[in-house]
């Protein structure tokens, strides 16, 4: 789960890390009120879960509440890389002497947290990584050793942080690591980490991603989820416990397991179809979940046919078959459904379907045949 900048900063503040003071606003009035409270020059920042806000016009400086209101009006509703801006963060303008970069990433490949620190912070750290790799200190932490004071020291020296800021930067490294561990974060990124003319070191941005699997032990973070921002169908899918991503095509696709669903998309594409969505019902799907999943797919009016591709492992074919019959009973289904069942209890499942024929239900034996059939049924041009 990605957090908005202002939510990340809230976690930073709770962890005792210095950030820039600000207020959330979801309307022009709130933005103006925030500016008045903060009393002084501020920055108005779009809160969207994507990068490139600055270039898209989502970050503006303002000297007066009137100016804030003007910018707020322009930014609210702004589409940034497909994300519509629904809230703002109005924060005090910090004086900036230097901009650094700092992050901790859960590095899946190395299976260790990776710490990166650079004195060349600000906009384009990826370019720094390519053009000036020596300016980006990267050190993996050995989780068996745990975080030790020397580790922050190494990073600070490797990045060439000037003497007078070493202690403050080391404290931020330690604090961010504590947050990384205690909040089950997959990413904590501060860009820029600013040094003020007075020599204070402050997190001027905060990008935090939390492990979805660990949200159960962080109810206060789980509550931060912005249900309004998600696509309504994706939101509906989430509530029903399935993974759904909307695409642009005509063939609704449902399968069990992300790999199989991706492969199904590829095969449909190869035989000339266009997938309408990615939908993974996950492992051990029960009849009710099958009904929910079909509802999500059918809520997309573009869908001309549905490809139902199940290879049972923990999922059992008989339960899937019962779910399909249930759905055919309970939902108004006006498009053809091509079902391919294999694996655990697949024979039982196929027998259940065979015993209850339905004009929209087509059963195929192989994935490739099923893909061809669904493309054909969707009308060829799908």
């Amino acid at each position, binding site marked *: 789960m990605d957090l908005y900048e202002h939510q990340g900063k809230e976690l930073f503040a709770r962890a005792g890390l210095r950030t820039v003071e600000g207020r959330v606003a979801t309307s022009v009035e709130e933005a103006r009120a925030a500016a008045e409270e903060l009393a002084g020059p501020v920055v108005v920042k779009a809160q969207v879960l994507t990068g490139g806000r600055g270039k898209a016009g989502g970050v503006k400086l303002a000297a007066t509440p009137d100016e804030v209101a003007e910018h707020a009006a322009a930014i609210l509703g702004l589409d940034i890389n497909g994300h519509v801006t629904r809230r703002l963060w109005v924060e005090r303008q910090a004086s900036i002497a230097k901009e650094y970069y700092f992050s901790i990433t859960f590095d899946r490949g190395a299976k260790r947290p990776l710490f990166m620190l650079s004195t060349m912070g600000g906009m384009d750290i990826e370019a720094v990584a390519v053009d000036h790799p020596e300016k980006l200190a990267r050190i993996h932490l050995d989780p068996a050793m745990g975080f030790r004071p020397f580790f922050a020291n190494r990073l600070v020296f490797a990045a060439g942080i000037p003497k007078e800021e070493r202690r403050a930067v080391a404290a931020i490294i330690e604090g961010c690591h504590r947050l990384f561990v205690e909040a089950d974060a997959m990413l904590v990124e501060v*860009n820029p980490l600013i040094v003020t003319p007075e020599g204070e070191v402050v997190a001027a941005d905060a990008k935090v991603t939390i492990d979805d699997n660990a949200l159960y032990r962080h109810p206060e973070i789980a509550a931060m989820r912005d249900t309004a921002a998600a696509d309504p169908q994706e939101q509906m899918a989430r509530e029903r416990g399935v993974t759904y991503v909307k695409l642009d095509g005509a063939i609704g696709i449902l399968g069990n397991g992300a790999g199989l669903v991706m492969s199904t998309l590829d095969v449909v594409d190869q035989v000339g179809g266009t997938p309408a969505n990615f939908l993974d019902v996950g492992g051990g799907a029960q009849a009710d979940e099958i009904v929910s999943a079909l509802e999500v797919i059918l809520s997309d009016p573009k869908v001309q046919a549905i490809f139902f591709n199940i290879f049972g492992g923990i999922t059992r074919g008989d339960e899937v078959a019962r779910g399909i019959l249930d759905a055919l009973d309970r939902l108004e289904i006006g498009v053809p459904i091509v079902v391919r069942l294999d694996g655990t209890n697949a024979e039982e499942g196929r027998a259940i379907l065979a015993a209850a024929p339905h004009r929209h239900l087509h059963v195929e034996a192989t994935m490739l045949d099923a893909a061809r059939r669904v493309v054909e049924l969707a009308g060829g041009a799908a």
Partner: protein
Amino acid sequence: MAVLVTAETRLVTQGITGREGAFHTLKNRAYGTQVVAGVTPGKGGQDVEGIPVFDTVADAVAETGANTSMVFVPPRFAADAIYEAADAGIGTIVCITEGIPAHDMLGAYTYLRPRGIRLLGPNCPGALSPGIANVGIIPAQVFAPGGIGLVSRSGTLTYQIGSEVAGLGLGNSTIVGIGGDPVVGTSFIDALELFEADPETTHIVLVGEIGGNEEEKAADYIAAHVTKPVVAYIAGFTAPPGKTMGHAGAIISGSSGTAVAKKEALEARGVRVGTNPTEVARIVAELVTA
């Protein structure tokens, strides 16, 4: 010989009295796996259709000589179950549980790895050595014994490819589902190493998907260390772009993590890549008969 799961496997299921734990344990036993014990704290002394249940893994190991555990406990307790298995001297831990927090697994992995304890998963379908033993949830009926080692990040896609290969009359030494979580105990490279060393395995099929750079690393490993022919499949050519982990994520992965990039990396190192499961099976059959 097969890998990971062999005739020597003596299985204990942690969480045997749960619905899924009991169902799949019994299926594994029915397949021929030596299932020697189950563990559910507080239910020691009971049995599940004749399989003795113990309060602790240590007791199960002491009483039954279990050497492999299958973890079927809920995600909140799964890391603890893995530690318990390791502490009790279990050498191979197969964790089926899905949804374990990544930091929990980071700690467990870091503990297990230098101690030489093999972990498969979590969030994986397990390993099946056709005709010998099955540990996990892989539907065994679609696979036959043979010389093809199959390793995959994906559960059901593994079955798909396996069944296509079987459809052409070929069999498998072992099917290994490594799981797709951020931290998995056994990587592609680990599985390749096992297959390379296994005399029964003649060919290797590697099933990857978009994201990360494990397939690229596997390609390098194959070029340097694998003498047996490898065929690969990558899922996700038409998948929507996944989310990236901030700038840091992009810097780490280096590559784009796309299916095309992975395919090219593998082909550049002499690995043939099929474009769909059916084609993968055809290439394998071609190599076997060549």
